[in-house]
């Protein structure tokens, strides 16, 4: 099966899964113990009015019909009105999504930049002290509670030592760059506002690191394991026997093949990034999807909660699809299964 057919199959599967995701969010929204109409109209509303509004909203139709209406609304981008700020939920999401994408991408970069070299060095110096230290860090990284690390680093680096700026995307005195993508650092770059760019990057460093170190740990362990596996292979021995320099052996032959499982891990950690973003954004007052979701749950703003959950699930599914396709592109054997 060639790449195109594989992509088509996986994409179709993802679409199907996304329908399932909407079904799950629909079911969740209708398991609300309280009657939403009564909650909306107030407890003392006359039953006749309650029935009338229920009919108007369509809550008295059979569930499958309601689901159909729900899907239709989704297709038109209508996710309901947020109770918190009385705006359409999709407007809220459009405002907060870029910040989360900015943070997650930065975190993944941090994770890759730390993880892959560390894992490589770890594998090449197996059981010697660089390896031991790296393994301790990687293991510790996947065992630390991210919310505590965020609080600790923020407290030390900002409150006590003033090395890094505090919560938020920009300092209070910095003017927000013009809205092009919604991602503050990118917008600053695109509009040539170097002061804003510098400020935005300084604000990005700590949250990105906090969000990324867990993934860095995973990537380190994965790279180490997979590189060790690859270095044992015959073709590596052949290359060495042929007299190929060690650096070339590692970089050109071993690492390319060792990175394949790492690619999958990167996709999987994207999910934990989205989860971790919830905690990190709350602590760093980062105006993203995670903080929006947290506020929605606190305010029991059901449309907002479900909208945010849906979007996060969609992003995660998209990331997994991308990773699967990338993996199939890199490793042709996968396409034949």
């Amino acid at each position, binding site marked *: 099966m060639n790449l195109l057919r594989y992509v088509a199959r996986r994409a179709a599967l993802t679409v199907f*899964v996304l329908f399932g995701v909407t079904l799950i969010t629909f079911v969740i929204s209708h398991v609300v113990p309280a009657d939403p109409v009564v909650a909306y109209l107030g407890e003392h509303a006359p039953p006749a009015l309650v029935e009338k509004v229920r009919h108007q909203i369509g809550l008295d139709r059979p569930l499958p019909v309601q689901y159909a209406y729900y899907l239709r609304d989704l297709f038109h981008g209508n996710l309901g009105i947020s109770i918190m700020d009385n705006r359409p939920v999709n407007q809220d999401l459009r405002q907060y999504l870029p910040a989360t994408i900015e943070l997650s991408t930065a975190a993944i970069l941090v994770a890759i930049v730390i993880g892959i070299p560390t894992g490589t060095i770890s594998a090449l110096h197996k059981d010697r002290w660089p390896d031991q230290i790296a393994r301790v860090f990687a293991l510790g990284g996947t065992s630390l509670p991210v919310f505590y690390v965020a609080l600790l680093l923020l407290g030390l680096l900002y409150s*006590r030592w003033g090395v890094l700026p505090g919560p938020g995307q920009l300092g209070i005195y910095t003017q927000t760059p013009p809205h092009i993508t919604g991602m503050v650092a990118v917008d600053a770059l695109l509009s040539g506002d170097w002061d804003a760019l510098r400020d935005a990057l300084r604000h990005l460093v700590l949250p990105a690191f906090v969000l990324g170190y867990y993934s860095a740990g995973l990537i380190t362990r994965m790279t180490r394991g997979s590189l060790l596996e690859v270095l044992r292979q015959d073709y590596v021995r052949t290359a060495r026997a042929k007299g190929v320099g060690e650096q070339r052996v590692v970089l050109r032959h071993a690492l390319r093949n060792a990175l394949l499982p790492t690619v999958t891990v990167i996709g999987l950690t994207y999910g934990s990034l989205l989860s971790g973003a919830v905690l990190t954004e709350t602590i760093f007052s980062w105006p993203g999807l995670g903080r929006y979701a947290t506020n929605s749950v606190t305010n029991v*703003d059901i449309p907002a909660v479900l909208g945010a959950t849906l979007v996060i699930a969609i992003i995660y599914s998209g990331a997994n699809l991308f990773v699967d396709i990338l993996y199939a592109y890199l490793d042709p054997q996968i396409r034949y299964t």
Partner: protein
Amino acid sequence: MTLAGGIIVLCFLAIALLGPILVTQDPIAQDLGHRLTGPSREHPFGLDSLGRDVFSRVINGTRISVVSGAAVVTVATIFGVAAGMLAGWSGGWWDEALMRITDMFLAFPSLVLAMAISAILRPNLTNALLAIAVTSWPAYARIARAQVLALRARTYIEAARAQGATDAVILLRHLIPNAVAPILVQSSLDVGNIILTTAGLSFIGFGAQPPTPEWGLMVSEGRRFLMDQWWISTFPALAILFLVLGFNLLGDGVRDLLDPRLRKLA
């Protein structure tokens, strides 16, 4: 390394079991006159903002965390393995359906789905654990299914059939015992994550509620005081770190132990 992990976990288990005996003070008793006092001989971990003994609360929290992890893993494993085995054994439509359903549940990061569920139901620890179990079972279903598919063609299964064993007997006596290994690996690796997720949920307020001495909740309660009265948040956080570390080491060891065996079997 595995041994270290095993020892750590056993220590925590012991603490969890012996909890009430080790606790020196009442974990929810407040002593507002002495609030925010530092560690001392009488209060090894200090007092928190309401004058509660942090040490006793951390000890009590051990039981909560260990039970949470165990409960979620047990529920997810039982449900997941049952579903996965049935799917793998029946094949055909059931199999496809299960795979699609697991895909759907796997599309949600666990913390996010747990938050959505706790927005609907009341936020408390039980609901949080339920939500986490809901996102955990698909992994076990997939592993169980893969094992069934791999093992069902083996000769000893054929032999059992020839002897007249019914499907149920084959499943119970032959397939399950042989499929246990990867499931064990997955669950020991999962427990650490489950504990972190539970603590995270409690931290933002959607899991355990005050005055429960749950570690994540304790870190949250101490946030404002982190720089000066560091003990309130730090000791629970260290407890989380060591328990999760223990389980991760244990999980790694279990995996290293069982994987070469699996490879030899295949």
